[in-house]
């Protein structure tokens, strides 16, 4: 049975602002869904509607087959982890974790048992008597997760939980969250703007843009077959090179002097894309085009080369990603080949993949 169903969910604010026109999403039991998008795309609003912190303007929200549109957050059987953790500053870690259970009227013994077992799982045994301000960022994050876990909810909701941590801790917590979720098998909805987090955590990704779900699918499906240029640019780092072009009998015509052969029925203006990691450095004879190098970023394991492609009328920026260290000269030409099977072609008008 599907766990959480969003059926034609929409949000309109009282001032008439249409934050989310309509979203359909069916989440299976135990699935890890990541909502990802740039800031202001409505991902947090959507999560807060599922949590019950925002009213739902249209559509149905079902959790375990029951419609919960008008239920209070506490009655929806969900637990949420907030960006700033939202721990009660005057309560100890133990009291923080026990508060939800206490309000439900659980007995003291049951609360103690549940809190202790979750604290053991998260390594918080030593910290139970401390106040939140005596904890480090990572520990607070763990307590916030513990508070969500003790309630044994049907759905976990995460609202950018890692954005306040330093980079190293973020990677560590990311792995931890994934392992915990696998172990508990709880359906999870996770909001982030960080595409690395999104790719590594998700069973399925929902890419949101201006309140619309641009594409829903597994991280690899989105990487390999992005449905729109927006998804193509958003997933993957550095993002995909996208160039405006025209499709005709000869193939893809980037400019008067540069065209790439392709047999396709579609005619008209398109957006042609290729990922930086799929471009190959070749000699001049086999090359599709040349890149004038403007900047080189050496990261040791890989090198990012930023440059422009001369299209006659204008210069289009392009990034190439090469394995290992490289030291090409600035302003020199790099001959590149774009293998056909890594092309992404989108209709410029409908923004759909061709």
């Amino acid at each position, binding site marked *: 049975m599907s766990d959480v169903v969003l059926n034609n969910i929409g949000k309109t604010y009282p001032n008439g602002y249409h934050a989310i026109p309509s979203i359909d999403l069916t989440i299976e039991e135990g699935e890890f869904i990541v909502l990802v998008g740039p800031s202001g795309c409505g991902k947090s609003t959507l999560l807060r509607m599922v*949590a*019950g*912190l925002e009213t739902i303007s249209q559509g149905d929200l079902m959790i375990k087959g029951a419609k919960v549109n008008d239920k*209070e*957050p*506490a*009655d929806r059987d*969900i*637990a*949420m982890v*907030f*960006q*700033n*953790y*939202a*721990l*009660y*500053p*005057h*309560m100890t870690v133990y009291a923080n974790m026990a*508060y*939800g259970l206490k*309000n*439900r009227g659980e007995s003291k013994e049951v609360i103690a048992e549940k809190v202790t077992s979750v604290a053991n799982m998260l390594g918080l045994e030593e910290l139970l008597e401390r106040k939140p301000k005596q904890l480090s960022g990572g520990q607070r994050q763990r307590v916030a997760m513990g*508070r969500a876990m003790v309630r044994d909810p049907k759905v976990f909701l995460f609202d950018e939980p890692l954005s306040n941590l330093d980079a190293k801790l973020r990677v560590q917590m990311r792995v931890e969250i994934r392992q915990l979720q696998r172990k508990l098998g709880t359906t999870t909805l996770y909001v982030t703007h960080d595409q690395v987090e999104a790719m590594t955590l998700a069973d399925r990704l929902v890419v949101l843009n201006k309140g619309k779900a641009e594409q829903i699918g597994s991280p690899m499906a989105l990487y390999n077959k992005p449905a729109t240029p927006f998804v193509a640019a958003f997933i993957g780092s550095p993002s995909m090179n996208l160039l405006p072009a025209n499709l005709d009998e000869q193939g893809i015509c980037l400019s008067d002097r540069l065209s790439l052969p392709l047999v396709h029925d579609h005619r008209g203006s398109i957006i042609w894309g290729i990922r930086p990691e799929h471009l190959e450095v070749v000699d001049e004879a086999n090359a599709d085009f040349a890149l004038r190098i403007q900047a080189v970023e050496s990261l040791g394991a890989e090198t990012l080369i930023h440059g422009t492609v001369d299209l006659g009328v204008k210069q289009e920026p392009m990034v190439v990603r090469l394995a290992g260290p490289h030291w090409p000269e600035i302003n020199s030409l790099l001959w590149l080949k774009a293998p056909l099977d890594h092309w992404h072609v989108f209709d410029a008008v409908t923004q759909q993949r061709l």
Partner: protein
Amino acid sequence: MIENRPWLTFVSHFSLLLGIGVVALPVWVALVASTHPSSAFGAGEIPLWFGDQALENWRSVFLGEASSGVDVPVWYMMLNSFIMALGITVGKLFISLLSAYAIVFFRFPFRGACFWVIFITLMLPVEVRIVPTYEVVANLDMLNSYSGLILPLIASATATFLFRQCFMTMPGELIEAARIDGAGPIRFFFDILLPMSRTNIAALFVIMFIYGWNQYLWPVIITTDDAYYTLVMSIKRMLAVDQGDIEWNHVMVTTLLAMIPPVAVVIGMQKLFVKGLVDAEK
């Protein structure tokens, strides 16, 4: 500003000491006068060192043997003052916490208007509305009663305003976390809001207690029965003797007694008081 100039240190210390002297001298004089026979103060020379009557003066004042112009002993008036001051303080805190809670966290029609109406009452302290308030209290048959002493002074726009500001700085996520944890309005108020405004409540408690303790005009007006006289009122009574000398030694003992509770409250709650004024602990 970190400077190291000897004369600056001297000047600043000197002016501080001078200030302390100015503030402390009257208290010192009162303390000294309370240990002399009543004639010493009236003789025109103010004694600056302790006399030998301390025990006797304090005892006679405390047990009401000294003629104070009031029929009840000082300890009884002290009790009255306590009941009034505590009643006003607790009442003010209770009412302003509730009204600030309603104004900040609940969406109801004319919410803003309600706040401004409360705020405008800042312009109507007891002194301004004393005649109509007296009328109301008299009609309710509350003259010469504790409720008459306390109730008209309870409404507080200042405290409501301060709590409103304090509540408005509560992080939104915390409120939402409490909602998800199943805390209804009452639970949220007692479990989250009150403990988190602890320091503000303490600070206001100190200010309100002193305000209540020092009330003079209102008690003078509505009490005619000696059983409801407060300590602060009685000092004035003692000065208004028809004939004979004013018993300065007894007046000073009473004055010192009237000073002790506010000082004790300030010292006892100093740490919380300062915390409440400077940081919000969030």
